[in-house]
């Protein structure tokens, strides 16, 4: 059994990724959505850090994300360097309904840019957009975009118009402008509905200097056997499919 598992790793590229951000912004939920395509309401706070892996296929490559989902609580802050030290990618998450969480995100970005691997790919993710959307019944992404554009225009007249955009504390424009300025990938996401989650990891995958990683780790990884049988078909997310909303589509 073990052999089968290890055999599938042969051609995959390992990408170390760390999630950072204030407590309760939804870091673990973002990862859970990506790794298991699940969502749990009222998730318990992460303790220390959790380690997860997920395979992705990007074109003809298989990426194996090794994800460090860190705890957001203040007392764990000092441990963060241990996790981002060798990371090739970081997802810094904030909560669009909480302005202070963006400020925290900015300090994380600063810290990463100062102390992490200089080539690190950083993505900024504004989570919980489901809270400012009218209703989950319309999953068409067009209406979602329209919603975001509307920002502080008249509140959505939908069923929950009252709680809709009013909850938003971080305008999309503002965060996006900051992301551009700081050279980050930017997404607004909902771990609850799954919106935008796979996109984060896809875009990161595209930006990661894969060849470089391969070159540097070539010594370490075992020389691949017959490459025809990549695990991507069975074990990974197919990133090309991210448009498909099919629940089963992107897991295993």
């Amino acid at each position, binding site marked *: *059994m*073990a052999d089968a*598992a*290890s055999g*599938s*790793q042969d051609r995959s590229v390992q990408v170390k990724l760390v999630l950072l951000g204030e*407590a309760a912004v939804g870091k*673990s939920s973002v990862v*859970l959505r990506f*790794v*298991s*395509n*699940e969502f*749990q*309401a*009222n*998730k*318990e*706070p*992460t*303790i*220390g*850090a*959790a*380690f*997860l*892996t*997920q*395979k992705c296929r990007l074109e003809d490559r298989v990426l194996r994300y090794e994800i460090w*989902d860190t*705890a957001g*609580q*203040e*007392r*764990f802050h000092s*441990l963060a360097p*241990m996790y981002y030290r060798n990371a090739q990618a970081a997802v810094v998450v904030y909560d669009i309904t909480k302005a202070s969480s963006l400020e925290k995100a900015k300090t994380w970005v600063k810290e990463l840019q100062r102390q992490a691997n200089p080539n690190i790919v950083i993505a900024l993710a504004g989570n919980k957009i489901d809270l400012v959307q009218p209703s989950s019944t319309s999953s068409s992404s067009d209406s979602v975009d329209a919603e975001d554009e509307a920002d502080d225009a008249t509140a959505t007249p939908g069923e929950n118009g009252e709680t809709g955009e009013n909850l938003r504390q971080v305008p999309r424009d503002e965060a996006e402008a900051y992301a551009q300025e700081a050279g980050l990938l930017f997404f607004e996401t909902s771990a609850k509905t799954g919106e935008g989650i796979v996109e984060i990891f896809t875009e990161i995958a595209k930006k990661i200097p894969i060849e470089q990683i391969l070159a540097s780790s070539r010594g370490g990884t075992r020389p691949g056997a017959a490459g025809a049988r990549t*695990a991507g078909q069975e*074990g*990974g997310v197919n990133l090309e499919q991210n448009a498909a909303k099919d629940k089963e589509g992107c*897991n*295993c």
Partner: protein
Amino acid sequence: MSKTPRTPRSRTPSRVGTPIRITGGTSGSPSRLIPPVPRLHSAPSVSSLRVHSAGYNSTIQTPISTSPPNSSIHGDSSSSSAVNVNQTEGILIQEPEVEVEATSGEDGTAGAHIENTALDDVARRQLRDHLRRTLTDTDASVAESGVRPSRHRAKSIEGDEVHIHADSYPPRQYFVLTDAGKPVFVSRQEVEESEAFTSMMGLMQALISVFLDDGDKIRCINAGKNRISFLLRPPLYYACVSAWGEPESVTRFHLEYLHLQIISVVSAEQLRRMFERRGNFDLRRLLSGAERFMHSLLARLEFDLAMSTSSLSCLRIDPNLRKAVADVLVPTSKIKDVLYMILLAQGRVITLVRPKKHSIHPSDIHILVNTIHAPSIVNSSASASWLPICLPKFNSSAFVNAYVTFMRHGQASVDDTAPMSPTVSASVQGESEETVVAQDGSVETEGSEPSSTSERPPTPHHAPEFGLVCVSGQADFEAVRSWCTSVTEKLEREGLLKAMTDAMHKGKTTYTVSDLSIPGLRHFVYKSRPHVQVTMPEYDEPYNDNNEKRRLITLYQILHDNIHAKSGQESTLKLQYIRTEHESVMGWITQPFELYLALSPLIPKSAAINAANAIARWVSKEEKRLFLRDAPVF
């Protein structure tokens, strides 16, 4: 009769009649326990104090009497004096039975917080006198507190009575506050939201301060059925309100554990430094997310007899299997700084390996086990968690790293790829039988697991999952991870996980009293003193009901308390027998073991003795399977 069981016990009446017993902390070093003067500022005013104390209780009546300084401290010395256990290089460290009066923690930091803005002596004396008057004034104290069940308004009951009411176990309430009166933790949310909360905290802080002023430490207040016990671990104060009739030492022991749990999160050193810097530091912020640990710890403390006997409860398993597993866990020379490798199942230790020079404290294991069973770790879809933890008995000022991974037979070998498959958690659900999830998570629901992943109780004792914990001093996660991965693969490859899973499914890892076929025996707890481990059967009729179980455990605790003279009894006992209308219980301590047993109340006392002997014989026959006797060291 129902309230006063016939108890042929040898307690001395001298301890009995004082509703408020304050015993001296003066044997410590009073000079370092100078009252934290400035904090009196933040306490409620004198007049408001009176009001709240009135609300506090209805039955405090006699003048406060301070018993002689030495009358009820240092139970630990007496427990160890009873029997001298020879322990050389054991796996577990024999902990002093009573840890609550260890003075070091208490005194160490008290001095740091004394500032100069002294309230003048007169005012202080006035406050103190007033407080005493208020506490003494029965008329003023009829008002009911909003948070306490009013049915407990009763005539003052002599302290020595054993209140055993099968139907009245209102949840105990626990409070943690800083010595500046700031709340840190409250066990019941609704209390925190109630209006009286702030003043309640203020009152506690004031009460404690008043006694500190006299160079004394308040231990407990007996008020009707309620007992409020206190534990002072500056900069933190702990309090527990309980109406269960358990000995004072029990709730104080719970408070001590609560303290250990807090230390495990922030470390004693960090705690000290923070409060040194800022006396009114708000610890809640730093502990956020860790409240869960404390709730689950309290739930454990309610029923876990291994914790209350300061020992460990290991999984009953074939000794050869245990040995084989332990051999796999021994770290290779490549991996450095490993402190302990522990394999758990059903919430119990299967085996643990350790460096030659470090034995392990049972309380460290309990804290560790409680921590890693937090829902965010045990229910996580992550393949592993990595958390910093301070093991208070190992080193209270430093953190170690714990690598934690949960696995199942049939899944462990694919450690690397498992987490990406969402079917992992689906299969967990599929296998589970329908079970009633007990409210406290501690009910023995055999061979099944809670059906809902999101609503799991804090301690899923019976999920047939293995937990592998590697405690290491170094921060090189990758090295530890690859080592642990190789361990889990090896456990699977050698069929050890399968063998253990089979044993668990077949119910071989537990037993019931009927396996012993001793007439009239309902339950027992056997502590092997050299091994520092306990063994006990599953709770059977009638103790599968939670309140019945609480009654039994309370009786055990009374025996334990008396045998070890933990609450200031004049001397320890060798044997005690109590008969109530529900059952008769007996506690017996000898050199190699401590035994507590419960029998039908109809059984004569002589039969109890025979039963105890029969248990001892059975255990010594089964010893190899029941206890973790030797594990490899490295």
